[in-house]
């Protein structure tokens, strides 16, 4: 796996989170009734940072949760792969809340599709708004993000690799080639 292009480094990362936070606040006019839910694994940590930024700007508290969509994936049902299942951890009521759904990369849209189904089983939120750090195109279902950190043009043989301090020890987003 070789790096083709560095999309974002440490300092750019924080600026991107700040901008996304401001956009979310502008659209929702504050943090009232706002909850932030990250998709496992990396969306979870992006969600925490986003929530911290929202509180830092606006004050108040923003609840965060984690959604595991493994059981809702269409590739599991078709024996395509069997990822590890981990628990969803949302300890608050999402009914009538504005849910900010957070993932690192938007690609085929299938993960987000699963997440929307999973959210519906937990409650009826007022809105669901999708935040991604990178939109790399190649959608297979009609899904779009509401807030996008960066649009990146990619080909199928490439991958957007997001590394986060919490998991990988550093913050970086790179475009990498998966072809040998």
């Amino acid at each position, binding site marked *: 796996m070789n790096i083709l292009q560095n999309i974002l480094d440490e300092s750019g990362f924080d600026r991107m989170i700040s901008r996304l936070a401001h956009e979310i606040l502008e659209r929702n006019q504050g943090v009232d009734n706002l909850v932030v839910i990250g998709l496992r694994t990396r969306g979870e940590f992006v969600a925490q940072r986003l929530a911290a930024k929202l509180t830092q700007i606006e004050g108040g508290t923003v609840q965060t949760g984690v959604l*595991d969509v*493994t*059981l*809702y994936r269409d590739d*599991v*049902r078709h*024996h*395509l*792969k*069997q*990822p*590890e*299942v*981990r*628990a*969803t*951890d949302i300890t608050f009521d999402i009914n009538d809340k504005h849910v900010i759904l957070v993932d690192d990369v938007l690609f085929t849209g299938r993960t987000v599709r699963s997440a929307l*189904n*999973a959210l*519906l*089983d*937990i*409650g009826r939120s007022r809105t669901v708004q999708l935040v991604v750090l990178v939109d790399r195109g190649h959608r297979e279902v009609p899904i779009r993000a509401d807030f996008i950190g960066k649009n990146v043009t990619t080909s199928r043989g490439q991958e957007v690799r997001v590394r986060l301090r919490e998991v990988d020890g550093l913050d970086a987003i790179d475009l990498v080639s998966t072809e040998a």
Partner: protein
Amino acid sequence: MSSLSIPHLLGLHDVPKQDLELILDSTDTFLEILDRPIKKVPTLQGKTVVNLFFENSTRTRISFELAERRLSADVVNFSASTSSVKKGETLLDTARNIEAMKVDIVVMRHAAAGSVKFLSERCTSRFLNAGDGAHEHPTQALLDMVTIRQKTGSLEGLNVCIIGDIAHSRVARSNIYGLLTMGANVAVCGPASMIPYDLERMGVRVFTNIDDALDFSDVINVLRIQLERDAGADFPSLREYHNAFGITRRRLDALGKDMIVLHPGPINRGVEIESEVADGPYSVILPQVTNGVAIRMAVLYLIGTRAE
């Protein structure tokens, strides 16, 4: 790896530790679903599960059926009393007919030890053993293990004693295999007439005195005296059994230590266990039942979505 190495769950004998850990670790996911307003996920949508019960069961069948429905599987129930078994059909013919109806997973209980394995080798469906004779009852042992782990965090080095009719108990056998694999110290206790010989060779300690057993234990798993299996032949009277081996509040309080009390149900109150214990602070009997649904969901998920 997050896939099971085994295609069927026939028993816990010879199931590697990493498979047991994967099943136990997955249970939290499914417990969380049971707390939701909509207790259903689409994971096994389009899969058909048949509950093939040649022997009566209420709680295991309901627990499996709930687990199946909560994973959105299509469920068919079959019980021997209403079936062509009565008309003399053989086990293999019954199973082949069911399989010809394109069933993905078979959950099976039968009075004959080894019957589930027998069919799993002759059919293409995935098999889950829900109890075969006095052989194994793996999901019961898994739910026992997960319940213990919720209390203690780990099974490694834990002293667990199974009390009662060990010789006729599939629950005991599955628990012994599973607990030993997970690194627990396993003991059994009961009337000598109900303890199979040679257990020590498996690394299991044998107590014939209940107080010695309680002294040893962090956890006790109290088995039901199976009145229907003419347990009366192995000891003089229920009252005598209760006096010698019954778990009473007084016995537990006298120990002056923490104790976790499991029972696979249904309980014979006042025989193997006193009501005051079954309903008291030592007991995890009802959490066992909840965990039973979750662990069966975990097993159905892991077996049902496992890549061929």
